[in-house]
């Protein structure tokens, strides 16, 4: 399906990607389901978390990076679970070592376990340190257009506002804020979090987002592999509709069949 012939590829940190869908690897039943759902989604960028190894437990068990090999996928390590800038920066440095100097990271500094809302003050601090340290920072943030602008000014390579709370599946809760962020964007804007089903992803793309990052919408679907594929099409459909430019909304009807030549 080479439908995006008028499009330019997504570019992040100097690399181009055909897919505008980024996916997480959390919450799957097992590694095999993870692999199959991600393959079906067509995603080229895949997020992972960085955690302590389980000392003395099953050292031989299969590793996530065996099924999502870094030579095939761009691995995007996240700082999920970090609640201050210091922890987030430490996690990114460990991730860079883990991935042989790979500098692309997803920065997220959370504020609260109930909402997983970003702590934008700590996020700004961490972003500043990481950019100075040579990281290519894709940053999870609120849909506050001013914070989004500041994160881009600091030097983040992509700004990723939430469309809804992480894992909520509530969809695009505030399209108007996203529109404002998009209107003045100087770096790629990705919706990160909130997408629940394919139409949500399409709406995000129709708004003009450069890409969408999602995890739970695929992993917690009844059939994650099928939803992965649905999301692939949803992203393509939304992107094409955005490029095509939708018709204006009208209050009243406008007949599609000509009025001339009616039999009466």
């Amino acid at each position, binding site marked *: 399906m080479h439908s995006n012939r008028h499009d330019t590829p997504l570019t992040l940190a100097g690399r181009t990607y055909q897919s505008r869908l980024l996916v*997480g*690897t*959390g*919450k*799957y039943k097992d590694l095999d389901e*993870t692999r199959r759902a991600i393959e079906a989604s067509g995603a080229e960028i895949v*997020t*992972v*978390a*960085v*955690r*302590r*190894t389980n*000392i*003395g437990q099953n*050292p*031989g068990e299969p*590793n*996530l*990076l065996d099924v999502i090999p870094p030579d095939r996928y761009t*691995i995007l*390590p*996240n700082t*999920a679970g970090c609640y201050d800038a210091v922890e987030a920066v*430490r996690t990114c*440095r*460990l*991730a*860079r*070592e*883990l*991935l042989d100097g790979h500098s692309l990271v997803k920065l997220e500094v959370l504020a609260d376990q109930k909402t997983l809302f970003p702590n934008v003050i700590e996020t700004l601090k961490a972003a500043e340190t990481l950019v100075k340290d040579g990281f290519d920072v894709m940053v999870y943030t609120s849909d506050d257009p001013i914070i989004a602008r500041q994160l881009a000014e600091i030097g983040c390579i992509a700004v990723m506002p939430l469309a809804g709370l*992480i*894992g909520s599946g509530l969809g695009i809760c505030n399209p108007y804020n996203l529109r404002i962020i998009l209107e003045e964007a100087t770096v790629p804007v990705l919706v990160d979090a909130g997408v629940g089903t394919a139409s949500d992803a399409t709406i995000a793309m129709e708004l003009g987002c450069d890409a969408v*990052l*999602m*995890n*739970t919408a695929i992993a917690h679907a009844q059939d994650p592999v099928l939803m992965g594929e649905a999301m692939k099409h949803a992203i393509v459909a939304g992107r094409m509709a955005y490029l095509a430019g939708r018709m204006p909304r009208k209050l009243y009807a406008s007949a599609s069949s000509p009025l001339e030549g009616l039999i009466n």
Partner: protein
Amino acid sequence: MRIQLNGEPFELPDGATVADLLVRLDLTGRRVAVERNLDIVPRSQHAETTLVDGDSLEVVHAIGGG
């Protein structure tokens, strides 16, 4: 000597290096990253980084996440 490993006390023979620790943990050749007292220990320096009593080590790997 006793170090802190991923937040828990861990016993090691005196003079052990980061590489020795990874052997003990059966993690040699696995994709892990090591931090010692808040500083990254690059893979190339595992064999020459000697641990001392009271060191605080973190050994991490990649797992599923969003």
